[in-house]
Structure formats: C-alpha cells, structure tokens
C-alpha cells in the first residue's frame, strides 16, 4: 500500500487539480487552525487566572471573628467573638483536614518603621513560619521567620522589598536594627513579590508581636491550609467542619456568618477550574464542528473525484485492480490531503499562539503586563498529537464513502460511460 507507485498516482491527480485540492485542504487547515487558536486562548485564560491564584496556596482558608448576630444558648446577639491561642493549639493538634496553620495579631494604628533618618509607614503581618508556604512568600535574601524566633519571642523582622528600598537604599539590611513603633527589630530577611503586591509588608513573629504590643492571648485571624481534595464538596466540608468546631468552642450559632467569617480559596479555585473545564469542552466542540465542516468538504471533493475518475477506475478494475487497491487509492489520497493541510493549519495555529506568547512574555518582562489575565496561551504537545491523530482519522472518514463508491464501480458501466 505504501509503495512509490500509489504515491505517484496520488500526486499526479493532485497536480491535475491544484486549485480544488488547495480549497479542500484550506477548509481542513482552517478547521484545525481555529481549534488550535481557541484551545490556546482557553489555556491562556486559564493559566492567567491560575496565576492570580498562585499568590497563595490554592488550599488556603482565612477565618476571622466579629459580633454574633443570632442569639444562641442563652447568649444575646451582639456578643464579640475572639479567637485565642488555644484555638491555634486546637487547629494545629486536633482539627481534621487541616494541614498548616498561621495566626495573625493586628497591630493597632499606623506603625512607623525607621532606620537612621529614613522612615515610613508599612503594614505589619504577624505570623507563624508556616505562612511562608501558605502565601508563597519569596525570600530574596536572608531567611523567613523560624520556630526559634517564635519560641524565644525574638525581635526579628522580614521586610518587603519596597521597605528595604525606602529605608536602606543600597545598604545591606541583613543584621541591621530598625525601629518599629519605637521597638528595635533586627532584619533577618527580605521578601520579594514579583507582582509587587506584598512588597510594602513586613513579617514579624506572632508570639513576639502578641507579647510586645499587649495582645494577651488574642488572635485576630487564622490562615490555614486544608488537605488537598478533589471536589468542591469535600473542600466545603472541611471548612464547614472547622466552623462547627469553632462555634462549639466559642458558643455561637454555626450558621452565624457575622460571628465568624471565612474565605475558602479551595472552593473558589475549584469552582473556577470547573468553569475552565466547561470552556475547554466548549472550545473542543466548536473546533471539532469546524473540523467536521472541513471533513465534509473533503468528502464532497473526493466524491466528485471518484465520479470523474469512474472510467479510470473501471479500466484499472478490468486490468486486474482488486476492490481493496481501489479503496486504498482513494482513502490514501483523502488522508494525504487532510493530513498535510491539517498539519499546515496546526503549525500556523500553534505558531501564532507561540508568537503571541512571546509578545506577552516581553510585556511581562518589561513590567507592563501585570494585570493581564492571560498567560502562556499555548497548546501542549499532547493536544497537538491528539489533533494530528484526529486529522488522520478525519481523512480516513472523509475518504470512506467515496472509496466505497469507487470500489463499487462496475467496469462494464464505467467503460461504456462515454
């Protein structure tokens, strides 16, 4: 089936009908081109949105307290609920489905940071060492808060890059003391956020802050990461379970959203990813639809071709061509046209998206593309291979009916068909 003769025959017919072959091929190329562009755009959007999530772990959950809005177990509404250090111990030790925990104590009022003559007002995030993983904090020099800092109530701080620039200019800040609300803290690290959102933030050991700024055992918010689960339902269940536990610890109605608020990133993340799955499916349906139009076109052309070549097929049969060899001839030509045309479409589509990606990366590098919800809009290798296989299959499909028709050609009728 793959000897040189059959290819020569196919090429000689293609050469005879250049325009027709081109137009047929074009419809297929267009179909696959659109599929690649759509898939690439879908991927780009998904990657873009996913990168928005990537500021934090996907499975992070924040909890905070407020005043009750529903009377509960004899308590009146309007009672203030407060997290405390025991809640931290509970979450770390006993709570189900919890991976890492960090607590935060808010410092009151504006806190001035100063070093020498330089000063400025910055946000202080008090935390446990686990926060580094939970919020994906990047350290450009030095280290993050560690367990020893916590145990010894050390007065150390990790400053964001903007704080470093404001206070230290070109001086190396590591080991230097800065005054934070008139308390000297040693700088042990510099953090860096490529999206420059958290660069005006400093990280301080939770225990130290609680002790220095008079927090008692008060905790304002908790950040926890839950175990990674596969469904939205499971993610919601973990959050709900923690809420139940906290409600019983602090005697408030579990349905009281004012008493304790929470935001579960995992459910949001999963919901968003589900939307993208739907988009992807939609894109495939459109792409396949376009491709089918191409296939029908090829099939149509091949039918005309068979009709035009009826006489030739009849001669071949009279000379001893078996039905199988006739089918092979038509099928192979159809597959050849679709595959080559489709491959051109594939390369153009992927090329366009790669070029687009290159431009995007240039924009990102120059810092002007931070707010773009679009990233790496390319099609992965597996998809391209799948598309190629679909093409070959389409070619076979397109050639099938014409080939069967060709195999049914009766030599007598074909030869008398003047």
């Amino acid at each position, binding site marked *: 089936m793959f*000897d*040189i*003769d059959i290819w020569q025959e196919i090429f*000689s*017919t293609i050469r*005879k009908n250049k325009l027709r072959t081109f137009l047929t091929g074009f419809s297929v190329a267009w179909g696959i081109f659109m599929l690649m562009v759509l898939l690439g755009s879908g991927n780009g959007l998904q990657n873009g949105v996913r990168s928005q999530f990537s500021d934090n772990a996907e499975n992070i959950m924040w909890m905070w307290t407020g005043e009750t809005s529903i009377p509960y177990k004899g308590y009146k509404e309007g009672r203030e609920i407060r997290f405390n250090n025991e809640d931290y111990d509970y979450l770390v030790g006993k709570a189900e489905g919890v991976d890492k925990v960090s607590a935060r104590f808010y410092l009151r009022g504006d806190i001035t940071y100063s070093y020498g003559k330089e000063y400025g007002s910055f946000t202080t995030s008090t935390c446990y060492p686990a926060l580094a993983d939970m919020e994906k904090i990047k350290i450009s020099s030095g280290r993050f808060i560690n367990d020893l800092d916590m145990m010894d109530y050390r007065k150390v701080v990790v400053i964001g890059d903007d704080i470093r620039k404001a206070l230290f200019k070109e001086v190396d800040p590591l080991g230097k003391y800065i005054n934070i609300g008139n308390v000297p803290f040693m700088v042990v690290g510099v953090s860096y956020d490529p999206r420059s959102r958290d660069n005006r933030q400093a990280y301080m050991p939770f225990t130290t802050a609680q002790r220095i700024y008079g927090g008692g055992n008060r905790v304002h918010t908790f950040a926890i990461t839950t175990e990674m689960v596969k469904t939205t339902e499971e993610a919601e269940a973990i959050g709900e379970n923690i809420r139940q536990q906290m409600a019983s610890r602090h005697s408030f109605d579990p349905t009281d959203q004012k008493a304790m608020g929470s935001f579960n990133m995992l459910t949001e993340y999963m919901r968003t990813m589900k939307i993208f799955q739907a988009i992807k499916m939609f894109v495939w349906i459109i792409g396949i639809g376009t491709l089918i139009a191409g296939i029908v076109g090829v099939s149509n052309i091949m039918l005309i071709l068979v009709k035009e070549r009826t*006489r*030739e097929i*009849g*001669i*071949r*049969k*009279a*000379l*001893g*061509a*078996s*039905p*199988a*060899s006739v089918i092979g001839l038509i099928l192979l030509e159809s597959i050849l046209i679709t595959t080559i045309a489709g491959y051109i479409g594939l390369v153009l589509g992927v090329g366009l998206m790669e070029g687009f990606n290159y431009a995007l990366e240039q924009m990102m590098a120059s810092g002007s593309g931070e707010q773009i919800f679009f990233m790496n809009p390319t099609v992965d290798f597996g998809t391209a291979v799948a598309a190629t296989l679909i093409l070959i299959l389409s070619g076979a499909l397109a050639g099938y009916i014409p080939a069967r028709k060709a*195999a049914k050609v*009766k*030599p*007598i009728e074909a*030869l*008398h068909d*003047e």
Partner: protein
Amino acid sequence: MIVLDSVHKSYVTGNNSLHVLKGIDLEIGAGEFVSIMGSSGSGKSTLLNILGILDDYDSGSYVLNGKKIKSLNETKAAMLRNEMIGFVFQSFNLISFKNARENVALPLYYQKVSRRKRNVIAMEYLDRMGLKDWADHLPSELSGGQKQRVAIARALISNPKVILADEPTGALDTTTSFEVMDILKEVNDQGITVIIVTHEHDIASMTRKIIRLRDGVIAEVIKNGDLQMYRDRVLAE
C-alpha cells in the same frame, strides 16, 4: 479454452426484466481467432462482458481454461482477469495522465511486479509494437492507431490466454484498422486466443471463425469453406 453451456442473462430494471442472452452454447478452442458479430441489442456486448468476467450470468455454465467461472467475488475476478484476459477497447481506455510505458506496465503493477522490472518488460512490448520512441508520451500525444497499439501492448503484457477486443477498429480509419488487425493476427499466431466483437464485415472476415448473434442466441457460426465464401462476398462489395 472457452466453453459456454446454455448461458442465460437478463437485466432487471425496476419491474422490467430484459432477457438478453437466451441460452448460449459456445466452444472456443485455444489459439482460435474468432469474431462475434451481431446488430446492437443482439447481446454481443453482454456476451463479451461475461467472457471477460466483467459481469456474471444467471444460469448455465462458463468454463475458462478448465476453471468454472460463476459468482466469483470481486477480488478473485480481478485476479483472474489480470492473469487470463487481455482487453482491447474501441475507445482505447488508456489512462490519460500516464505515459505509454506506464499504461502498458499497469497490469504488472497489479501482479506486484517491481517497478523497474515492469518498466523493462513494458519497453519490450512497446518495442514489439514499434512504439519504443513514444514510451514517454502521454496518450493525448499519440494518434489513434498508436493508442490502440499501446492498448494491445497493455493487453499482452500479462501473458493472457485470451485477448478480448471490443470493436478494436471502431474508432480507426481503414488503413489503421488493417494495421491493428495485422497485429492481432500476429498475436494469434503466437497461440493466444483472440476474440473480436465487431459489426464490420471486412474486419470479421479477417478472423477464422465468425459467430453471429441474433436476439440473444447464436444464429450461425461461419467457418472453414463457408468463411471463404463470406470473405469473397465481403471483398466483392
């Protein structure tokens, strides 16, 4: 070589059934040179199709070279056609985008003969037809007589037992017709059975046996002495 025993064939179109062959008994020995004559509608094309295994028949029997031909599947029929029968058509039926050599070599392609080998053999046959210099020409660049000689070379290349020629001179002028008939005669001299369907008396008179069909049956068989008389009569006209 060919034995037909009360072969019947009818074509059914809708509710109408057209009884074309109404019991043909025919025997053609190896090496015979036969023409089949008859007016249109006499069934001569149908008979030729059956002889060429291009069409099946309804009842009776057809034995070709000791092998019964009946209800063969397409692949088998194609194989038998390739091995046993060489076709020559009125309209030449060369493949337009293939040159003379490729056209001649085509039957060998279906015998899975290698490309180089079949091209060599095709050149031999073209040479025999005096068309060596035209091997690379497309059919559109050849004259009618040349085309028919290419077609005869193609029919001969698979070493068939029988040559079936359907009005081989129908599209040619008298001189070329006679040339083609001379070639067919030579072919016959090598021991190959040649069967010609024609309605031209002068062409038929050049064969050694004339089978006349009328309304689906064999009306007469002219041979030997009768044939000589027939020839004289044709020549006198």
